[in-house]
Protein backbone atom coordinates (compact mmCIF):
# COMPACT_ATOMS: atom_id res chain seq x y z
CA UNK A 1 0.00 0.00 0.00
CA UNK A 2 1.60 3.20 -1.11
CA UNK A 3 1.06 5.73 1.63
CA UNK A 4 -1.79 7.86 0.42
CA UNK A 5 -2.91 10.26 3.08
CA UNK A 6 -6.27 11.85 2.38
CA UNK A 7 -6.98 15.42 3.36
CA UNK A 8 -9.01 16.45 6.39
CA UNK A 9 -11.37 18.08 3.92
CA UNK A 10 -12.11 14.75 2.22
CA UNK A 11 -12.76 12.98 5.51
CA UNK A 12 -14.96 15.78 6.77
CA UNK A 13 -17.00 15.76 3.56
CA UNK A 14 -17.52 11.98 3.77
CA UNK A 15 -18.50 12.27 7.44
CA UNK A 16 -21.08 15.00 6.73
CA UNK A 17 -22.53 13.01 3.81
CA UNK A 18 -22.83 9.98 6.10
CA UNK A 19 -24.71 12.02 8.71
CA UNK A 20 -26.97 13.48 6.03
CA UNK A 21 -27.74 10.01 4.67
CA UNK A 22 -28.67 8.87 8.19
CA UNK A 23 -31.13 11.74 8.42
CA UNK A 24 -32.53 10.98 4.98
CA UNK A 25 -33.01 7.27 5.60
CA UNK A 26 -34.80 8.02 8.89
CA UNK A 27 -37.09 10.62 7.32
CA UNK A 28 -37.88 8.51 4.25
CA UNK A 29 -38.88 5.60 6.50
CA UNK A 30 -42.04 7.52 7.45
CA UNK A 31 -43.08 7.98 3.82
CA UNK A 32 -45.28 5.21 2.48
CA UNK A 33 -43.33 3.69 -0.39
CA UNK A 34 -44.81 0.22 0.05
CA UNK A 35 -42.34 -2.52 -0.75
CA UNK A 36 -39.81 0.08 -1.88
CA UNK A 37 -39.18 1.16 1.70
CA UNK A 38 -36.86 -1.81 2.14
CA UNK A 39 -35.17 -1.15 -1.19
CA UNK A 40 -34.50 2.51 -0.41
CA UNK A 41 -33.30 1.73 3.12
CA UNK A 42 -30.87 -0.92 1.85
CA UNK A 43 -29.73 1.29 -1.01
CA UNK A 44 -28.85 4.13 1.38
CA UNK A 45 -27.15 1.65 3.72
CA UNK A 46 -25.12 0.31 0.78
CA UNK A 47 -24.03 3.82 -0.20
CA UNK A 48 -22.96 4.48 3.40
CA UNK A 49 -21.07 1.19 3.46
CA UNK A 50 -19.24 2.10 0.24
CA UNK A 51 -18.32 5.55 1.58
CA UNK A 52 -16.94 4.07 4.80
CA UNK A 53 -15.08 1.28 2.99
CA UNK A 54 -13.64 3.41 0.19
CA UNK A 55 -12.61 6.44 2.24
CA UNK A 56 -12.38 5.55 5.93
CA UNK A 57 -11.03 2.04 5.31
CA UNK A 58 -8.76 3.28 2.50
CA UNK A 59 -10.17 0.76 0.06
CA UNK A 60 -9.44 3.24 -2.77
CA UNK A 61 -5.74 2.93 -2.06
CA UNK A 62 -5.67 -0.78 -1.19
CA UNK A 63 -3.90 -3.43 -3.21
CA UNK A 64 -5.88 -5.42 -5.76
CA UNK A 65 -5.54 -8.50 -3.58
CA UNK A 66 -7.18 -6.77 -0.62
CA UNK A 67 -9.92 -5.35 -2.79
CA UNK A 68 -10.56 -8.82 -4.21
CA UNK A 69 -10.80 -10.34 -0.72
CA UNK A 70 -13.31 -7.71 0.36
CA UNK A 71 -15.36 -8.20 -2.79
CA UNK A 72 -15.22 -11.95 -2.13
CA UNK A 73 -17.21 -11.40 1.05
CA UNK A 74 -20.18 -10.39 -1.04
CA UNK A 75 -19.86 -13.45 -3.24
CA UNK A 76 -20.06 -15.77 -0.21
CA UNK A 77 -22.82 -13.69 1.35
CA UNK A 78 -24.75 -13.80 -1.91
CA UNK A 79 -24.45 -17.58 -2.12
CA UNK A 80 -25.67 -18.02 1.46
CA UNK A 81 -28.57 -15.60 1.05
CA UNK A 82 -29.66 -16.59 -2.45
CA UNK A 83 -29.61 -20.34 -1.92
CA UNK A 84 -31.40 -20.18 1.43
CA UNK A 85 -34.06 -17.77 0.23
CA UNK A 86 -34.53 -19.73 -2.99
CA UNK A 87 -35.50 -22.62 -0.74
CA UNK A 88 -37.58 -20.76 1.85
CA UNK A 89 -39.47 -18.49 -0.52
CA UNK A 90 -40.49 -21.26 -2.92
CA UNK A 91 -41.58 -23.92 -0.42
CA UNK A 92 -45.28 -23.34 -0.98
CA UNK A 93 -45.06 -23.41 -4.75
CA UNK A 94 -44.76 -27.10 -5.38
CA UNK A 95 -47.12 -28.26 -2.65
CA UNK A 96 -44.47 -29.69 -0.37
CA UNK A 97 -44.79 -29.89 3.38
CA UNK A 98 -42.99 -27.65 5.76
CA UNK A 99 -44.46 -24.23 5.30
Amino acid sequence: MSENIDSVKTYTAVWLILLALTGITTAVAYVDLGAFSVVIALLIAAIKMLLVALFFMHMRHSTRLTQLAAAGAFLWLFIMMAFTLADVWTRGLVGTQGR
Partner: protein
Amino acid sequence: MAEQAHTPVETLALREQFDTAEQQKESSTFGMWVFLVTEVMFFGGMFLAYTVYRNTYPVVFGMASTSLNALIGALNTAVLLCSSFTMVMAVRAAQLGRRKVLIWFLILTLLLGLVFLGVKAYEWNEKFVEHHVPGMHFHFEGAAEQGPAQLFFSLYFAMTGLHALHMVVGAGILSWLLYHALRGRFTAEYMTPVDIAGLYWHFVDIIWVFLFPLLYLIDRHMR
Protein backbone atom coordinates in the same frame (compact mmCIF):
# COMPACT_ATOMS: atom_id res chain seq x y z
CA MET B 1 39.13 -5.46 21.64
CA ALA B 2 36.65 -7.56 19.83
CA GLU B 3 35.09 -5.52 17.14
CA GLN B 4 31.52 -4.58 17.63
CA ALA B 5 29.42 -6.78 15.42
CA HIS B 6 27.46 -4.54 13.16
CA THR B 7 23.88 -5.55 13.75
CA PRO B 8 21.38 -3.76 11.56
CA VAL B 9 19.03 -1.68 13.63
CA GLU B 10 15.68 -3.35 14.07
CA THR B 11 13.79 -0.73 12.15
CA LEU B 12 10.00 -0.66 12.00
CA ALA B 13 9.92 -3.92 13.94
CA LEU B 14 10.41 -5.77 10.66
CA ARG B 15 9.95 -9.51 11.16
CA GLU B 16 12.29 -11.87 9.43
CA GLN B 17 9.67 -13.50 7.21
CA PHE B 18 9.11 -10.20 5.38
CA ASP B 19 11.39 -8.56 2.83
CA THR B 20 10.30 -5.00 3.39
CA ALA B 21 8.30 -2.96 5.85
CA GLU B 22 5.81 -2.28 3.11
CA GLN B 23 5.27 -5.97 2.49
CA GLN B 24 4.80 -6.52 6.20
CA LYS B 25 2.19 -3.77 6.35
CA GLU B 26 0.34 -5.13 3.32
CA SER B 27 0.21 -8.57 4.91
CA SER B 28 -1.26 -7.12 8.09
CA THR B 29 -3.87 -5.17 6.17
CA PHE B 30 -4.75 -8.16 4.05
CA GLY B 31 -5.00 -10.40 7.11
CA MET B 32 -7.40 -7.99 8.76
CA TRP B 33 -9.57 -7.86 5.66
CA VAL B 34 -9.73 -11.65 5.50
CA PHE B 35 -10.83 -11.67 9.13
CA LEU B 36 -13.48 -9.07 8.32
CA VAL B 37 -14.74 -11.31 5.50
CA THR B 38 -15.31 -14.07 8.05
CA GLU B 39 -17.14 -11.49 10.16
CA VAL B 40 -19.36 -10.61 7.23
CA MET B 41 -20.40 -14.26 7.11
CA PHE B 42 -20.83 -14.37 10.90
CA PHE B 43 -23.23 -11.43 10.91
CA GLY B 44 -24.60 -12.52 7.52
CA GLY B 45 -26.13 -15.61 9.12
CA MET B 46 -28.10 -13.41 11.52
CA PHE B 47 -29.21 -11.06 8.78
CA LEU B 48 -30.36 -14.11 6.84
CA ALA B 49 -32.33 -15.48 9.81
CA TYR B 50 -33.92 -12.06 10.25
CA THR B 51 -34.86 -11.91 6.55
CA VAL B 52 -36.42 -15.37 6.61
CA TYR B 53 -38.52 -14.79 9.75
CA ARG B 54 -39.49 -11.27 8.79
CA ASN B 55 -40.75 -12.74 5.55
CA THR B 56 -42.62 -15.49 7.40
CA TYR B 57 -44.29 -13.20 9.98
CA PRO B 58 -44.45 -9.78 8.27
CA VAL B 59 -47.29 -8.33 10.35
CA VAL B 60 -46.00 -9.14 13.85
CA PHE B 61 -42.42 -8.26 12.86
CA GLY B 62 -43.70 -4.92 11.54
CA MET B 63 -45.47 -4.19 14.82
CA ALA B 64 -42.48 -5.23 16.93
CA SER B 65 -40.08 -3.26 14.74
CA THR B 66 -42.10 -0.05 14.99
CA SER B 67 -42.16 -0.37 18.79
CA LEU B 68 -38.44 0.47 18.77
CA ASN B 69 -37.46 4.11 19.18
CA ALA B 70 -36.29 5.22 15.71
CA LEU B 71 -35.09 8.63 16.90
CA ILE B 72 -32.75 7.13 19.48
CA GLY B 73 -31.61 4.63 16.87
CA ALA B 74 -30.85 7.43 14.39
CA LEU B 75 -28.98 9.47 17.01
CA ASN B 76 -26.94 6.44 17.99
CA THR B 77 -26.12 5.85 14.32
CA ALA B 78 -24.87 9.43 14.14
CA VAL B 79 -22.74 8.86 17.26
CA LEU B 80 -21.18 5.80 15.66
CA LEU B 81 -20.52 7.59 12.37
CA CYS B 82 -18.85 10.41 14.31
CA SER B 83 -16.66 7.83 16.05
CA SER B 84 -15.67 6.46 12.63
CA PHE B 85 -14.70 9.97 11.60
CA THR B 86 -12.57 10.49 14.72
CA MET B 87 -11.02 7.05 14.16
CA VAL B 88 -10.00 7.86 10.61
CA MET B 89 -8.58 11.16 11.88
CA ALA B 90 -6.60 9.20 14.46
CA VAL B 91 -5.21 6.96 11.71
CA ARG B 92 -4.33 10.04 9.68
CA ALA B 93 -2.55 11.59 12.67
CA ALA B 94 -0.61 8.35 13.10
CA GLN B 95 0.34 8.34 9.42
CA LEU B 96 1.70 11.84 9.82
CA GLY B 97 3.42 10.95 13.08
CA ARG B 98 1.48 13.49 15.14
CA ARG B 99 1.42 11.82 18.51
CA LYS B 100 -0.67 14.34 20.44
CA VAL B 101 -3.35 14.54 17.76
CA LEU B 102 -3.43 10.74 17.59
CA ILE B 103 -3.94 10.51 21.34
CA TRP B 104 -6.79 13.02 21.35
CA PHE B 105 -8.62 11.40 18.47
CA LEU B 106 -8.23 7.97 20.09
CA ILE B 107 -9.76 9.36 23.30
CA LEU B 108 -12.63 10.91 21.33
CA THR B 109 -13.28 7.67 19.46
CA LEU B 110 -13.29 5.70 22.69
CA LEU B 111 -15.68 8.17 24.32
CA LEU B 112 -18.08 8.09 21.36
CA GLY B 113 -17.97 4.30 21.40
CA LEU B 114 -18.87 4.33 25.09
CA VAL B 115 -21.71 6.80 24.44
CA PHE B 116 -23.07 4.39 21.84
CA LEU B 117 -22.94 1.51 24.34
CA GLY B 118 -24.58 3.68 26.99
CA VAL B 119 -27.48 4.52 24.71
CA LYS B 120 -27.75 0.85 23.80
CA ALA B 121 -27.92 -0.05 27.49
CA TYR B 122 -30.70 2.52 27.94
CA GLU B 123 -32.64 0.98 25.05
CA TRP B 124 -32.20 -2.55 26.39
CA ASN B 125 -33.37 -1.42 29.80
CA GLU B 126 -36.49 -0.03 28.18
CA LYS B 127 -37.16 -3.48 26.74
CA PHE B 128 -36.97 -4.99 30.22
CA VAL B 129 -39.40 -2.40 31.55
CA GLU B 130 -41.81 -3.03 28.66
CA HIS B 131 -41.57 -6.84 29.04
CA HIS B 132 -40.19 -7.06 25.52
CA VAL B 133 -37.35 -9.35 26.55
CA PRO B 134 -37.97 -12.92 25.35
CA GLY B 135 -38.66 -15.29 28.21
CA MET B 136 -41.22 -16.02 30.90
CA HIS B 137 -42.40 -12.44 31.36
CA PHE B 138 -42.57 -11.57 27.69
CA HIS B 139 -45.66 -9.71 26.62
CA PHE B 140 -46.12 -7.75 23.45
CA GLU B 141 -49.37 -5.80 23.52
CA GLY B 142 -51.56 -5.96 20.43
CA ALA B 143 -50.02 -9.05 18.88
CA ALA B 144 -52.34 -12.01 18.53
CA GLU B 145 -49.35 -14.33 18.34
CA GLN B 146 -46.72 -13.85 21.03
CA GLY B 147 -44.35 -16.42 19.49
CA PRO B 148 -43.34 -14.45 16.40
CA ALA B 149 -43.05 -11.28 18.52
CA GLN B 150 -40.62 -13.12 20.81
CA LEU B 151 -38.76 -14.23 17.73
CA PHE B 152 -38.33 -10.63 16.63
CA PHE B 153 -36.97 -9.58 20.00
CA SER B 154 -34.74 -12.66 20.19
CA LEU B 155 -33.20 -11.63 16.89
CA TYR B 156 -33.09 -8.00 18.03
CA PHE B 157 -31.14 -8.89 21.16
CA ALA B 158 -28.89 -11.37 19.37
CA MET B 159 -28.01 -8.93 16.59
CA THR B 160 -27.62 -5.75 18.64
CA GLY B 161 -25.96 -7.79 21.41
CA LEU B 162 -23.39 -9.29 19.09
CA HIS B 163 -22.78 -5.85 17.63
CA ALA B 164 -22.38 -4.36 21.11
CA LEU B 165 -19.95 -7.15 21.98
CA HIS B 166 -17.86 -6.10 19.00
CA MET B 167 -18.01 -2.53 20.28
CA VAL B 168 -16.77 -3.65 23.71
CA VAL B 169 -13.88 -5.48 22.05
CA GLY B 170 -13.27 -2.35 19.96
CA ALA B 171 -13.18 -0.21 23.11
CA GLY B 172 -10.60 -2.62 24.53
CA ILE B 173 -8.48 -2.35 21.39
CA LEU B 174 -8.74 1.46 21.51
CA SER B 175 -7.59 1.47 25.14
CA TRP B 176 -4.63 -0.70 24.15
CA LEU B 177 -3.78 1.70 21.31
CA LEU B 178 -4.10 4.65 23.66
CA TYR B 179 -1.71 3.06 26.15
CA HIS B 180 0.91 2.50 23.48
CA ALA B 181 0.33 5.87 21.84
CA LEU B 182 0.93 7.53 25.22
CA ARG B 183 4.21 5.64 25.47
CA GLY B 184 5.14 6.93 22.02
CA ARG B 185 5.22 3.55 20.35
CA PHE B 186 3.67 4.66 17.07
CA THR B 187 5.54 6.67 14.49
CA ALA B 188 4.84 7.69 10.92
CA GLU B 189 6.91 4.65 9.86
CA TYR B 190 5.24 2.18 12.20
CA MET B 191 1.55 2.64 12.90
CA THR B 192 0.16 -0.66 11.60
CA PRO B 193 -1.80 -1.44 14.82
CA VAL B 194 -3.62 1.89 14.57
CA ASP B 195 -4.41 1.26 10.90
CA ILE B 196 -5.65 -2.30 11.50
CA ALA B 197 -7.75 -1.30 14.52
CA GLY B 198 -9.28 1.42 12.34
CA LEU B 199 -10.39 -1.21 9.82
CA TYR B 200 -12.07 -3.19 12.59
CA TRP B 201 -13.79 -0.14 14.05
CA HIS B 202 -15.16 0.96 10.67
CA PHE B 203 -16.37 -2.55 9.97
CA VAL B 204 -18.38 -2.61 13.19
CA ASP B 205 -19.78 0.75 12.11
CA ILE B 206 -20.86 -0.71 8.75
CA ILE B 207 -22.67 -3.57 10.50
CA TRP B 208 -24.69 -1.02 12.46
CA VAL B 209 -25.40 0.92 9.26
CA PHE B 210 -27.33 -2.16 8.11
CA LEU B 211 -28.80 -3.13 11.49
CA PHE B 212 -30.34 0.29 12.03
CA PRO B 213 -32.65 0.44 8.97
CA LEU B 214 -33.47 -3.29 9.08
CA LEU B 215 -34.44 -3.35 12.75
CA TYR B 216 -35.81 0.17 13.26
CA LEU B 217 -36.98 1.63 9.99
CA ILE B 218 -38.32 -0.57 7.23
CA ASP B 219 -41.79 -1.07 8.69
CA ARG B 220 -42.37 2.53 9.82
CA HIS B 221 -44.41 3.53 6.79
CA MET B 222 -47.15 1.02 7.68
CA ARG B 223 -47.95 2.83 10.89
